[in-house]
C-alpha cells in the first residue's frame, strides 16, 4: 500500500509517477473515446486494481481503466482546505457545566466536498457551530481521550476513561457525556458502571447510528438528549442515552449494566434488557420511568479500575467440542463466561473440559444466550450437573456484561471465595430483583 498513492495498484502508480501526477493534482485524461478533467483522488483500500479515480467538475467521481493508449496530463493542483469555524462556545453561569469526552467516531462532522472526506468536529466551538442548541443546555468543555473505532476498544481504554471521570466528578463538574461508537457501547457502559464506585454525577454515553455527515443523522438529537440528561437529571449512574424510536422523537435512558445493541443499523437499536429503561428524554424534558436508581450526591467518586484481561466469552452451540474450553485452559485464562442455551446449559459432552477448567481454578460463569430471563440451573439435570462441576450461575446478566464483570472481579481478587461472593453481589444494578411482566417486550412508545 502506497502512502503517496493510497489505494492505487502498482501499474497505476507507475503511470501516475511518470507524468508527475500526485493525489489532488488536476489532471486531464484522454482515452480512446473521450477526455476527462478532474481532481485525482485517493482510492479506498482494496479497490479494484488498474483504475485511476478522479472527481469531475460536476462533482461526480469516476474510475477510468488504465490502458496503454491512455494519456494523462497534469494541469494544476487543488488541495482540500479546512477552515475551522471561529465561533466560541458561549458560557452562561446559570447553566450546568458539562464535560464531553471523545473516544473516536464523529458526534458532529464537516464534509470536504473536494475530497469527499468527513472531518470530525469536536472542539466546543466546532460543536457549537454544528449543534448550537447545546449552548441552551449547558456550558461545555471537551476533551479527546482517544480516537479509535469502537470495535477496537480495549479494557485499558475503559480504565483510562474511568480515571478521567473520577477526576472530573471530584472537581465539581455537573455531568459527563462520552461520545462513543455504538458497536461496543454496551461493554463500555458496563465496564464504567463496575469501575466507578460512589459516583456523584450522571455519566451519559452517547453515539449515533447514522453518521453526522448526513442530514438525517441522529447524532445531533442524541447529543442534545444526552447533554440534557447529564446536565439536568438527578441520576448518578452510568447510562446510555440514544433514540428510542425510528422517529426523531425521544431518547431513552438505559442503565449501563442492562443495555444492549439489538440491531445492526436502526436508530433505536439500544434496548434495556430484562427491565424497562430508566427514563425518557424528549424536547428537553426528562421523565423517569423507574423509581430505583442512584441519585446525585456529594460523595467522592472512586475509580476502581483493575481488570483481568485473561477472561474469555464462549457461546455454547450444538456440536461444540471440548477443545474450545481446553484452549482457554491451555492459554492460562483465569475465567470464562459461558453463554449457555436456555436456562444455562451446555451439551453434556463437554463436561470433561468444564471439569478440567474448574479443577485448575478457572472461574466459569454461566449466563443465558437468550439474553432475556434468568439462568435456572436447578431445573434440569444438566444445570444441576454443571453447578456440581463448579460453574457459577450468573442470574440475568447479559453475556457481555458478565464478561466485563468477571474481568473486573478477577482484577480485584483471585481468591475463589471472594471471587464468587463478588460475582454474586449486585455491584451496579446488573442483577434484577424481579422481572416485571412487560420487561420482555415493552413498547417504548407506551412507556
Amino acid at each position: 500500500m502506497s502512502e503517496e498513492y493510497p489505494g492505487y495498484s502498482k501499474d497505476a502508480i507507475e503511470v501516475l509517477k511518470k507524468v508527475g501526477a500526485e493525489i489532488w493534482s488536476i489532471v486531464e485524461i484522454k482515452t480512446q473515446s473521450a477526455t476527462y478533467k478532474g481532481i485525482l483522488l485517493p482510492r479506498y483500500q482494496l479497490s479494484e486494481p488498474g483504475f485511476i479515480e478522479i472527481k469531475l467538475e460536476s462533482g461526480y467521481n469516476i474510475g477510468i481503466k488504465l490502458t496503454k493508449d491512455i494519456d494523462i496530463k497534469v494541469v494544476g493542483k487543488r488541495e482540500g482546505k479546512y477552515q475551522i469555524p471561529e465561533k466560541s462556545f458561549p458560557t452562561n453561569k446559570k447553566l450546568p457545566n458539562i464535560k464531553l469526552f471523545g473516544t473516536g467516531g464523529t458526534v458532529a462532522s464537516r464534509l470536504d466536498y473536494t475530497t469527499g472526506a468527513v472531518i470530525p468536529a469536536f472542539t466546543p466551538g466546532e460543536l457549537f457551530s454544528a449543534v448550537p442548541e447545546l449552548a441552551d443546555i449547558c456550558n461545555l468543555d471537551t476533551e479527546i481521550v482517544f480516537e479509535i473505532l469502537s470495535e477496537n476498544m480495549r479494557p485499558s481504554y475503559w480504565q483510562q476513561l474511568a480515571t478521567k471521570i473520577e477526576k472530573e466528578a471530584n472537581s465539581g463538574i455537573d455531568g459527563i457525556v462520552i461520545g462513543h461508537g455504538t458497536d461496543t457501547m454496551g461493554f463500555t457502559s458496563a465496564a464504567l458502571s463496575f469501575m466507578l464506585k460512589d459516583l456523584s454525577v450522571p455519566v451519559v454515553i452517547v453515539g449515533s447510528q447514522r453518521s453526522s455527515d448526513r442530514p438525517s443523522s441522529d447524532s445531533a438529537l442524541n447529543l442534545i438528549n444526552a447533554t440534557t440528561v447529564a446536565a439536568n437529571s438527578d441520576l448518578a449512574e452510568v447510562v446510555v442515552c440514544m433514540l428510542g424510536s425510528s422517529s426523531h422523537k425521544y431518547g431513552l435512558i438505559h442503565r449501563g449494566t442492562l443495555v444492549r445493541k439489538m440491531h445492526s443499523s436502526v436508530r433505536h437499536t439500544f434496548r434495556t434488557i430484562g427491565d424497562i429503561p430508566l427514563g425518557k428524554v424528549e424536547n428537553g424534558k426528562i421523565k423517569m420511568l423507574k423509581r430505583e436508581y442512584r441519585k446525585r450526591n456529594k460523595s467522592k467518586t472512586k475509580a476502581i479500575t483493575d481488570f483481568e484481561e485473561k477472561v474469555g466469552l464462549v457461546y455454547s452451540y450444538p456440536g461444540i467440542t471440548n477443545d474450545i474450553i481446553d484452549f482457554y485452559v491451555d492459554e492460562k485464562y483465569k475465567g470464562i463466561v459461558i453463554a449457555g442455551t436456555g436456562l444455562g446449559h451446555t451439551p453434556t459432552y463437554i463436561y470433561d473440559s468444564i471439569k478440567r477448567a474448574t479443577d485448575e481454578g478457572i472461574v466459569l460463569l454461566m449466563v443465558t444466550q437468550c439474553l432475556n430471563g434468568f439462568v435456572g440451573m436447578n431445573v434440569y439435570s444438566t444445570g444441576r450437573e454443571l453447578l456440581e462441576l463448579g460453574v457459577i450461575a450468573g442470574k440475568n446478566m447479559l453475556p457481555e456484561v458478565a464478561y466485563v464483570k468477571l474481568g473486573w472481579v478477577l482484577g480485584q481478587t483471585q481468591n475463589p471465595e471472594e471471587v464468587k461472593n463478588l460475582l454474586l453481589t449486585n455491584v451496579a444494578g446488573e442483577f434484577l430483583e424481579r422481572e416485571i411482566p412487560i420487561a420482555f417486550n415493552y413498547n417504548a412508545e407506551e412507556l
Partner: protein
Amino acid sequence: MKDYDYKKLGLKVGIEIHQQLDTKTKLFCRCPSELRGNKPPDFTLIRYMRPVLGEMGLYDEAMLTEYEKGMTIVYEGYKDTICTYEMDETPPFECNYEGIDIALTIASLLKMTIFNELHVSRKNYLDGSVPCGFQRTTVVATDGEIELESGKKIGIEFICLEEDAARKIETDNKTNYFRLDRLGIPLVEITTKPDINTPQEARDCAERIGLLLWGTGKVKTILGSIRQDLNVSIAKGSRIEIKGVQKLDWFIPLINNEVSRQLKLVEITEKLKERGIKPETLEEKVIDLSKDLKNTKCGFVNKGIKSGKKLLGINFPGFNGLFGLELQPNRRFGTEVANKVNIISGLKGLIHSDEDLNKYGFSNEEVEAMKKKLNSTSDDCFVLVLGKEENARKAMNIIFKRTEMAFNGVLGETRRALEDGNTEFLRELHGGARLYPDTDSKAIIITNDRINDIQKELPEFPWIVMKQYSKKYKIEERLVKDLIFEGKLKLFEKSLEVYNNPSLILTTLLETTKALSRDGVNADEIIDTQYIELFNSLKSNEISKEIIEDVLSELAKSPKITLKQVKKQLKITKLSEADLIKIVEEVVNKGTDLIKEKKMNAFGGLMGDVMKQVRGGIDGKIVAEKLREAIKNKMEELKL
C-alpha cells in the same frame, strides 16, 4: 405568444430528463418498484433534517434556506412494500443489476462513452424528499448525442443512474408529508448540452429523447414516470433552472416566458443605469409605519396592526415604475420579489407603490403620510409588508437583497414551472458542492464484455420502428408513436397475433381507452392479458365491437376480473341469427305504432331497443341489417 429572434438573443437551452426504469425491484433494496396510489399508509415516521457543514466550515446557502423553514417531515410507509432501507435504517444493498443494464442500454443508444468504474455519490437534499438527506446517484456515461428529426445533433452531457425521491403528499403548515413507495425506484437522469437554440427545438429534443426511452420497452410508462427540467439562458442573462416541467406542451411557453423575464430584468438594470441610480443609492432603512396607520381604512392592515402585527416600509429611490414592470404575463417585478419573500419567510404578499394603493383601501392622505415618513418621491417606489415583527423584518431583508440585485440583471436560480407557463422562485442554485462519495457502497465495475453484450442486443431506434410498423400494418406513423408513448407497442403486437385487425386494435388501445379516461374510468388498470382475452372473444364473435367500451370499463375495476365474469355481469351471451330475429320481431311488433308514424325513420329508436337486449352478443352490423329487413317487412304488412 410572442416570438423572439432567438439567434440574436443568444438563447441556450439544456434539458434534463428523469425517467423511471421498469425494474422489478428498487435500486438499492429489493422492495418492489411499485407505487401504491391512494392506499392509506400503514405507518408513519417523524424526522428532522439538519444541514451539514461544508468544507469551509460553512453551510450551503440553499441547504440553510431549507433548514430555516423549520419543517417537520413525516414519512408514510406500507408494511409489505417498504423496508428499513427506505426508512434510512439499513445500509444500501447491492446496486440493482437490471437497472444498470437498462442505463447502459440507454447510454449506448445515445452513443455515449461508458465508464468502467462507477462510483455512487450522495447528493444532499434537505427538503425531506429523501429520508437519508441525500440521493444516491452515479454517473454512468458521458459525451453522447441525439439526432433530431431536423438532422441537428444535440450533445448529451451525462447519464446518471439514481434513486427516485419519495412522493410528496401534502404540506400542512410546517409539516411535509412524503410517501415512501416512490423512493428508490431506479431513475436515469439524462442531461443535454446547452446546444438547443429555440423553444421548438427544446420541445423536439425532449420528445425525441422521450421516444427513445419509451421505445426501449424497459422504462416505466405510467403518468409521472418521466419528468423534465430546463436550463434556459440568453446572452445577457444567466442560467435559470426550471424544475418540474410536466408536459411537453409546457416547453414553448415556459421558455418564451423565461426569455421575456430575462429581457425585462436586463431592461430594469438598463433603466436604473439611465436614471443614474447606483447600488450605493439604496439603503436598507426599514421604517415602522404601524403607529401612523393604526386607524387606516385598509381593512386587513387595520386588523393586522390591531392584532399586534407591524406594517414596515422601505423606499427604493429611482425605482418608480420598476416594481410594476411586467416580466411575464401577469407577473411583475413586484411579484417576483414577493414570491421570493413568501418561499423563504412564509410571509404572504407585499404592497408596492407602483400599484393602485386606493384599491387596497388606503386613502390619499394615508399614502401621502407614508411617502413623507419614508422620504419617498414620485421618482421612487416604496414597498410595504405586514407581519409579526421578526418575520416582517426578515421579509424586508429579503426584499432589500433581491431589489439590490436588480442592478445585476438576471440571478442564476432554480425556479418552479407553473401550469400557466410562468415560473416562480424555488431555491438558490445548488452547486456541484453538494456531491460527495457514498461511503456505504463500493465501486461498480463495468467490464467491456458486459458493455459489448448489451450493445449486441440494442433495440431499434423508435423512429425506425415507426416507419417499419407503418409500412407493415398500413397505419400512420403518428399512431405508432402514440403506441410507444402509451407504452402499448408490445401489447399491439401481441394482440395482432390473436386477432389480425390492426385498425380495431389501434382504436381500442388508443381511442377507446382515452374516451374511458374522460369518463373517469381508470383504463391504465387494465392489464395486457385482459386485452388479449377481449381480442380473442372479438375474433370468435363471442362479443361484438359495440360493447368494447362497456367491457373495458368493467375490466378496469380490477386486474383480477376475467372476461367471463364481465360477460356475466353485462349479461352478454353469444346470439345465433335465429335468436336475433326473434328479438327483432318482438321489438318491431311492439313498435308498430312508431313505424306507422315514422316509417323507416323509426329505425334509430328501435335499434336502441334491440341493442339493449342483444347486449353485444352479436355484431351490430348484422343487427342493423336484420332490423332494417324486419321494419321493411312490417311496413309491407301494414301496407305503408
